[in-house]
């Protein structure tokens, strides 16, 4: 539904997110002006004041385009994304947090309690009574309410249905421009919408496709960190130089900025189409080209990857099979077998 002024209604919300995605949108520079031309910004906590009740007041489906960044960490996140889902025609999971869980998702490696201990009793925290945030706290003035933390960090699509996914930490501004352009065109009826559920603002292959470095058949006899390299070969594939570069399994679209700059890809654009488990693809690829046949030798080489989970699951843990909410559900599902 389009506003009287002919503009489309736009919303953007940050759940558990660093705000980088919002900045990436603002990074459209001049283009943001055209954007303002085409859209009425009805809700965007990062850039303008807004009240949830205003959103609640809107008719369902009245927001044409909503971008949600951030993963679902607490009750508020969950509540608001459900609200926005109701109010929005098109809901885009925007950026790595929303699509895969990203850094906040790493919290799923531990327990909520453990997490709180680190924050509220960790070094440099003076908390003699070992207080913890609680969703309801009685104070003289009355009862205070705080959004409760959820037991697991979840990706947006684990909570509400998502129309499109746009990967990246954050998504590249050029891609944002493309996507906004594309969707605007569609909203204007000048173009068709991309198939629902598809990934937008990214390619269909992997970063290697965009990376210009020279590659040959791979055999890795040692994993090293960049500072351990005598000298970085400017032209040669980073993985072949022993740097654990995630480019081979990471969806393209970023323009391979990191590897081309000599920094190994960390995988923020997530897996390519149809991949079951991002981490599995990475570890399988790395292991396959380890240049050793004897267990001892293999171990020696693998010791070069001190934190495999960090290497392979940095962005995708919350969406992963073993540490994702989906896994938890599947695991419990298989138990519903009482005679």
């Amino acid at each position: 539904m389009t506003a009287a002024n002919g503009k489309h209604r736009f919303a953007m919300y940050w759940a558990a997110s660093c705000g980088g995605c919002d900045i990436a949108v603002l990074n459209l520079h001049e283009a943001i002006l055209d954007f303002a031309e085409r859209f009425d910004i009805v809700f965007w906590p990062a850039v303008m004041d807004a009240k949830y009740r205003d959103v609640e007041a809107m008719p369902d489906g009245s927001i044409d385009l909503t971008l949600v960044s951030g993963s679902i960490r607490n009750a508020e996140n969950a509540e608001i994304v459900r609200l926005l889902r109701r109010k929005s025609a098109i809901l885009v999971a925007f950026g790595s947090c929303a699509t895969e869980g990203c850094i906040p998702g790493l919290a799923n490696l531990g327990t909520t309690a453990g997490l709180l201990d680190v924050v509220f009793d960790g070094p440099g925290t003076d908390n003699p009574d070992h207080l913890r945030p609680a969703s309801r706290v009685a104070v003289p003035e009355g009862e205070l309410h705080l959004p409760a933390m959820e037991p697991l960090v979840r990706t947006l699509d684990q909570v509400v249905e998502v129309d499109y996914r746009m990967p990246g930490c954050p998504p590249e501004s050029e891609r944002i421009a493309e996507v906004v352009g594309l969707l605007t065109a569609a909203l204007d009826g000048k173009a068709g919408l991309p198939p629902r559920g598809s990934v937008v603002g990214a390619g269909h292959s992997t970063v290697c496709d965009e990376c210009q470095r020279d590659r040959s058949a791979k055999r890795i006899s040692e994993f090293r960190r960049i500072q351990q390299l005598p000298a970085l070969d400017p032209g040669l594939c980073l993985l072949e130089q022993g740097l654990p570069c995630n480019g081979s399994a990471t969806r393209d679209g970023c323009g391979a900025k990191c590897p081309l700059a000599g920094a190994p890809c960390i995988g923020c654009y997530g897996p390519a189409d149809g991949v079951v488990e991002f981490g599995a693809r990475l570890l399988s690829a790395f292991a396959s080209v380890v240049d050793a046949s004897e267990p001892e030798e293999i171990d020696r080489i693998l010791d070069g990857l001190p934190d495999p989970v960090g290497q392979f699951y940095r962005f995708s843990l919350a969406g992963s099979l073993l540490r994702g909410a989906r896994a938890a559900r599947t695991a419990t599902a298989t138990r519903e077998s009482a005679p």
Partner: protein
Amino acid sequence: MSIAPSTSPFEPVVLAFTCNWCSYRAADLAGTARIKYPPSVRLIRLMCSGRLDPAFVLRAFASGADAVVMTGCWPADCHYRIQNVKALRRFELLHRVLVDLGIEPERFQRVYASAAEGQQLAAAFTRIVDEVRSLGPLAWGRQPGIAAESEAPADEPSTPALEGVPG
């Protein structure tokens, strides 16, 4: 011996990936020779242990397997010459990842069995089932988050504890 129906309250589910040329035939041989092993072991046939995609193992655990076994030809006896070596490399790295994800090392094992070693394969299955039985179910409970979610439907925000909060 855990071949006889076990009195233990918990009977694990063990998923074993087999190689079409060695361990799968060893399993056939165990059958033909009526060698017994626990029914909690279930087999999936691959052409080679080198086909074992780590995602299969993760999926198995996520779908309720209490342990996963990679079986294949003895080193240097691979039907595809050297492909079981690649399987070994992946096994080692995946094993590290699983341990870091909080899964006991015994829950992911590898067993070599030539086509002639039905007896040995059955023995290995029996041993592994015993080990896993004593470990208990794959403890999603060790991650209270997941446990909690499994109790509360995902869309109901649940409340963390209030210990140490005065008043």
